[in-house]
């Protein structure tokens, strides 16, 4: 699996969040909290994690998912798994 840059992951997450939760990709910026800023619930977070796994090949287990509060947290987690 090719290494993804931070920008690529951010853009990919934007597409995923748009598709699953209907939040415009432009609003998905690194400092945003999924729950507090983007109004994404726990089940949608699972869908986002599964979609991110398909896209980036990085598995995000449920017990890790609860600690990933912001978009930057998810980007870091995906990059660290490489």
């Amino acid at each position, binding site marked *: 699996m090719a290494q993804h840059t931070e920008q690529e992951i951010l853009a990919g997450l934007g597409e995923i969040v748009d598709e699953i939760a209907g939040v415009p990709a432009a609003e998905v910026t690194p400092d945003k909290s999924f729950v507090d800023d983007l109004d994404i*619930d*726990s*089940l949608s977070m699972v869908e986002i994690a599964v979609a991110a796994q398909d896209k980036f090949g990085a598995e995000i287990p449920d017990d890790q998912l609860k600690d990933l509060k912001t978009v930057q947290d998810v980007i870091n987690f995906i990059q660290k798994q490489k």
Partner: protein
Amino acid sequence: MSTALPVPGPLGGARVLAFGEHQPANVVTNDDLAQRVATSDEWIRSRVGIEERRIADDTESVESMAVIAGGKALAASGLAPDDIDLVIVATCTQRDQIPNAAATVAARLGISAPGAFDVNAACAGFCYATGLAADAVRGGSARNVLVVGSEKLSDWVDWDDRSTCVIFADGAGAAVVGAAPAEENGVGPVVWGSSGERADKIYLRENRYLYQEGQAVFRWTTTELHRVALQALERSGVDPSELTAFVPHQANLRIVEAIARKLGAPQALIARDIVSAGNTSSASIPLAIARMGGRGELPSGSTVLTLGFGAGLTYAAQVLRIP
């Protein structure tokens, strides 16, 4: 030298002759629940897709609801009580473990001395029981079988826990399975399985209250179970494009819709009975089929794919032809 014992047969087919359902009269709305726990109509609709559910009162039990649903199915089948050789009740919420529910249900329906046992495969129970019923008919162990899924989940819900009390409900659904010529077989092969290493995902907390790890269950159901459903279609020789309806266990509307999207059957009607019935575990599939049938949505001969899944973890799927 010993001689072989007789093989029942010749093996023919099986089909569902009729469905029946029962819901308690008491309607509990989301607003009713919001008066008790910190929740709201909007929150419940968006998270689980339920608008209202039925909750049984103290006079109703797993057995009493099963008797009403089973009685309706029996009446609609046109059979006499004594044409039934076996009664199977799928349930995981019976108050008393001993005696079983099936024998009591049979006696109350005037069925004299049939085989009678309960199945606990949680929310997959109806699919398991229907598979067993069809096998019993095809194998010559019973002429006709009454299958009932009946659940009083309200007995096992912590009514102060907003993560579970908004989901679960009470009700019963039933089917009569009888013999058919092999070329008219109307119960496809059951595809069943389990994942006991994940038993801790849905269980009774303090041996008293239903608890589930919502995210883990959501991930399991929405990423793995469409394969079980597709396998059941394949084993029945049915293409997704031929499906009249998809009736999965009514666990959560978002789970129902997520699995449906992966089936490749855009023309199929998707059961959304959970909206007004809640999650009734093993009762949800026959309840949904009976209610859809009652609205004229499932004409005779319709091909329906069922998929049950729940605690265990257990799962099962099969194709049924609507009588």
